[in-house]
C-alpha cells in the first residue's frame, strides 16, 4: 500500500499553529525590571487597623508595559504586607472618555476608591464635576516625609487652597531632535530654541532623498497637535482664556501671528521638503512611530518615545537630544513645567483611609523605582526627596538632571502680554481643546483661509463652548 505523503489539512493547520506559537515565543517586549519593593514600617503601622480591607483603583495606562507590570507588583507587595486587597484596573487616558466614565461611576455610586490620572489634563475636570475628595491632610503628611512636590502640582492639584490630588510621578515636557543630523550640519545643541530657529534648522537637516524629514509636528486632530498649536500661541503671547480661565481672549494680534507662523510651515512650498508625506493625517501615535523609524529630525512628545527607544535598544536613542521646548516673541523661556500623574480619592469611596494609604505607599522610593525603571525618564519622582532615594534617579540616564530641574521650575511663567502659565484649570479651555477647535482652525488656514479670519471664527466657536459651560462672555 502506498504511503500517503501529502500534507493533510489537519497536519498543515497543526504545523501552522506551532509556527505561530514559536514566533510568539521569540518575540515579547523588554522584561520588567526586578526591584525589591519594601513597605515602610510607618505605613505598616497605619495599615494595622485596616487589615482585611480592600480598595479598587484605576490606573491611567502607562505607555511602557514593563512599567504597568511593575506598578502591579508594587501594589501586590503592599497588599501582602498589609493583609489588604488592592484591585487595579488600567484605563486609557487618550481614549477621550475617561473623565466621563469616572464621573458616571461616581454619580451612580459604583466608583472605585482611588485613581491616578494626569493632573494637567484630568484633575481639574474631575474637581469641576465635584467627583473628588479633599486630600490636603495626606499631602501635608507627605511633605514632611518627601519634601516639596513638583511646582506644577500646586497649580493643577490645588483648588481654593486645598489639595484634591496627591502627586505620584512626574512627567516632563520635552521636545526631541536628531543630535547626529544637527551635528552633521554644524547646528548647536541647546537646552531650548526659538520656534523660528527650530523651523529653519528643520529645513536645513531635511533631505527627502535620504528619508530625512526635519519637522515631525502635525496639526491634524490629536493631543500632540493641540499641545503644539497651543504652545506656539502661548509663546507668541496669546491664549484661549485669560488668567482666570473664564474669559475668552483668543482673538488677539499675538494669536494671529502665531497662527500665521504655523500656517506658513504647512503652506509655503519652501518648507515642503521638511514635512514627511502624510503628516496631515497623523494622530497621536504617528509621530512616535515615525520618530522610532528614524525619519524625523524633530518632534514633540512625552518621554514615552524616549523610553521606548531606550528599552527596545532603538539606535535613535543614542542620537536623541531631548530639550525643554521652544520660546516665542512673548517669552524667552520655554513653557515647560511638566505634569504629574496624581492620585485622586473619589467621593463615595468605600475605604478612603486605605485608599490614601495606598497613595502614600506608591509615592515612596522602592514602590516607584520599578515603575520608573520600566519607563525610563517617562516616570520620574514628583517629590523632591524621592529623587535622592536611589542612585538610579541620578545616574540612570543623562536626561535626569534636567528632568529634576523641571520639577523645580519657578512658576508662574509670565509672558510680555501678562498671561501667566500654567493657567488656572479651565473647563472651557479644556472643552474647546478637546473639541479640536485649534486643529480645525489650522486646517482651515491650510485650506486657504486667512489666519486673521480663521482666528476670528475660532474665537466665536470658543465663546460658544465657554457659554455652554456656564461662563457668559
Amino acid at each position, binding site marked *: 500500500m502506498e504511503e500517503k505523503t501529502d500534507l493533510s489539512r489537519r497536519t498543515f493547520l497543526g504545523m501552522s499553529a506551532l509556527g505561530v506559537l514559536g514566533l510568539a515565543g521569540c518575540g515579547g517586549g523588554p522584561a520588567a525590571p526586578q526591584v525589591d519593593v519594601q513597605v515602610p514600617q510607618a505605613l505598616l503601622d497605619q495599615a494595622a487597623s485596616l487589615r482585611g480591607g480592600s480598595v479598587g483603583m484605576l490606573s491611567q495606562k502607562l505607555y511602557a508595559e514593563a512599567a504597568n507590570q511593575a506598578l502591579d507588583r508594587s501594589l501586590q507587595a503592599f497588599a501582602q504586607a498589609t493583609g489588604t486587597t488592592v484591585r487595579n484596573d488600567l484605563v486609557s487616558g487618550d481614549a*477621550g*472618555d475617561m*473623565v*466621563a466614565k469616572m*464621573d458616571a461611576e461616581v454619580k451612580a455610586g459604583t466608583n472605585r476608591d482611588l485613581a491616578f490620572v494626569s493632573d494637567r489634563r484630568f484633575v481639574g*475636570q474631575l474637581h*469641576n*464635576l*465635584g467627583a473628588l475628595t479633599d486630600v490636603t491632610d495626606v499631602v501635608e503628611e507627605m511633605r514632611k516625609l518627601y519634601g516639596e512636590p513638583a511646582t506644577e502640582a500646586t497649580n493643577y492639584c490645588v483648588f481654593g487652597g486645598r489639595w484634591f490630588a496627591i502627586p505620584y510621578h512626574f512627567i516632563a515636557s520635552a521636545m526631541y531632535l536628531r543630535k547626529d543630523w544637527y551635528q552633521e550640519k554644524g547646528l548647536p545643541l541647546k537646552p531650548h530654541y526659538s520656534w523660528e530657529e527650530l523651523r529653519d534648522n528643520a529645513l536645513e537637516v531635511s533631505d527627502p532623498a535620504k*528619508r530625512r524629514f526635519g519637522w515631525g509636528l502635525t496639526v*491634524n*486632530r*490629536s493631543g500632540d497637535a493641540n499641545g503644539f498649536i497651543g504652545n506656539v500661541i502661548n509663546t507668541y503671547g496669546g491664549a484661549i482664556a485669560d488668567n482666570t480661565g473664564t474669559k475668552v481672549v483668543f482673538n488677539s494680534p499675538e494669536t494671529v501671528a502665531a497662527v500665521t507662523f504655523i500656517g506658513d510651515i504647512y503652506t509655503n512650498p519652501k518648507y515642503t521638503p521638511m514635512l*514627511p*508625506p*502624510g*503628516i*496631515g*493625517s*497623523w*494622530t497621536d501615535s504617528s509621530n512616535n512611530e*515615525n520618530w522610532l*523609524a528614524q*525619519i524625523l529630525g524633530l518632534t514633540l512628545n512625552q518621554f514615552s518615545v524616549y523610553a521606548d527607544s531606550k528599552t527596545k535598544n532603538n539606535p535613535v536613542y543614542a542620537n536623541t537630544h531631548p530639550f525643554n521646548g521652544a520660546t516665542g516673541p512673548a517669552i524667552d523661556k520655554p513653557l515647560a513645567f511638566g505634569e504629574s500623574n496624581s492620585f485622586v480619592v473619589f467621593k463615595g469611596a468605600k475605604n478612603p483611609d486605605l485608599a490614601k494609604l495606598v497613595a502614600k505607599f506608591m509615592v515612596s522610593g522602592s514602590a516607584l523605582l520599578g515603575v520608573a525603571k520600566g519607563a525610563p525618564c517617562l516616570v520620574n519622582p514628583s517629590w523632591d526627596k524621592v529623587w535622592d532615594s536611589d542612585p538610579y534617579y541620578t545616574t540612570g540616564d543623562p536626561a535626569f538632571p534636567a528632568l529634576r530641574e523641571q520639577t523645580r521650575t519657578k512658576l508662574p511663567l509670565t509672558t510680555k502680554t501678562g498671561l501667566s502659565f500654567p493657567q488656572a484649570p479651565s*473647563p472651557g479651555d479644556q*472643552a474647546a481643546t*478637546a*473639541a*479640536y477647535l485649534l*486643529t*480645525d482652525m489650522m*486646517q*482651515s488656514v*491650510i*485650506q486657504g483661509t486667512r489666519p486673521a479670519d480663521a482666528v476670528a471664527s475660532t474665537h466665536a*466657536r470658543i465663546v*460658544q*463652548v465657554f457659554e*455652554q*459651560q*456656564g461662563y457668559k462672555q
Partner: protein
Amino acid sequence: MTVLRERPAPARPAPSGSSSLTASQRRFGRDWRLAAVFIGPTLLLVAALILFPIVSSIFTSTTERHGAETVFVGLDNYTALLGDTVFHKGVLNSFVFTAYAEIFKVTLGLIAALMLHHMRRGRAIIAGVILLPWVVPTVVTAFTWRSLFDPIFGSVNVLLTDSGIGPALAAVGLVDRWPAEWLSDPALAMPAVILVNVWKGIPFFTVTFLAGLKAIDSGLYEAAIVDGASPWQRFKHITLPGLRHVMIVTVLLSSIWTFNNFDLIWLMTQGGPGDATAPYVMVAYSKAIQQLQLGAGAAVTLVMLPIIGILVVILVRMMRRSDLPGTGDLGRRRLTPAQRRAMPWVIVAASVLVLVWASPHIVWKAALVLGVFVVLAAAVGRVVSTLAARAAGWPHAWSAAPARGSRSWVCWASCSPRSTG
C-alpha cells in the same frame, strides 16, 4: 406548477352585541388577560431597555452642565445646532459617507454573490476570502489600512507606483498628485475611509444576495431561455426582481449601520484632516464625552433620530410586506404604468443631483471607478463564458444556457445553477 391560493378572508370580529362578553373583552379581545401575561414581560423589557433611555436622553438634551451643576436650558441645545457649522458638516459627511458606501457595496456585493453562485470549484475558498473582511475586528481593519495608506511606509502607494496605476490615476485626475497622501489630503480622506468601509461591508451584501439568488426559482430562467431572452433581459427581469426584497432590506440595514458608523473613522482619521471625515456621530461624541456636555451631545443624536426613524419604518414595512405573500405594493398601485416606469429613474436622478451638490469633488470619480468595476466584471464574465462555450462546443455563448455540467460565466448574472447544471 405553482398554485396560487387566494388569501383567506380576515376573520370577522364577534358581534358587538354578544351578551356573553364583558365590556373589556369586547374592547381588547376575548383572551386579553392571557395576552397581557404573554406580552407583558416583552413590553416591560422594551420599556426599560429602549423607551426609558430614549425618554431620559430627551430630558438630558434640555440640560447643560455648569461645573458640578446640571441646569435646565430648554431647547437651547437644539437651537444652537442651527448655526453650528461643525454639526452641519458632520451631517453632510455622514450622508456622503453612507451614500457612496452603499452604492459600492451593493454593486460589488452583487458581483461577488453572482460569481459565487455560479462557481463549481473552489467556492468555499473564494467565499472564505470574501468573508474575511467581515470577521476582522474593526480596530485591526483601521490600523491595517492606516498602515497600508501611509505615504512613506505603506504598500498601497508602492504597489500602485510600481504597477504604473498610481501615476495613471493622477493623469486622469482621480488623485490630485502622485504619490497620493490618502488620509492627509482633504479631497482623498473621505474616499479612502469609504473604501475601507466598502471593503469591510461587501461580505454582508454578498452573503445576503447569495441567499436571495438561491431562492429564485430556476424554472423562471429555463422559461426565459426557451423564450429567447438574452442574458441581460434575464438579469433585468428575473434576477433583479427576485432580489428586490433582499436588496432593500440589506441596503436599509446597512444604511442605518453606516450612517451611525463611528469606530472605523475615529480609528483611521479621528475625523480629520480638519473635519473632512467627521460624521455627525463624532460631533455628538465630541460634545457629550470630550466636552462633557451630555445635553448637547444628546441633542445632536436626537435631531438625527427622525432620519434613522424613517429608514427603520421603511425597513419594517418591507419586512412585513415580504412576510405576506400576495400583498402588493399598495403605494405603487396608485401610480399609472408610465409613472411606475419613470419612478426609479426619478429617484436615481434626484439622488445623483443631491450627491453632486453634497460632494462635487467625489461624484465623478466614484462614477468612473464604479463604471470600471462593472465593465471589468462584465468583460471577465464574457471572456470566461466564451472560452467555456468553445470548450463545450457550443455555437455561441449567448445563444443558450450551458449544458453537461459546465457553467457559463456569461450567464452568471442571469441563470440559475440548477437550470444549467
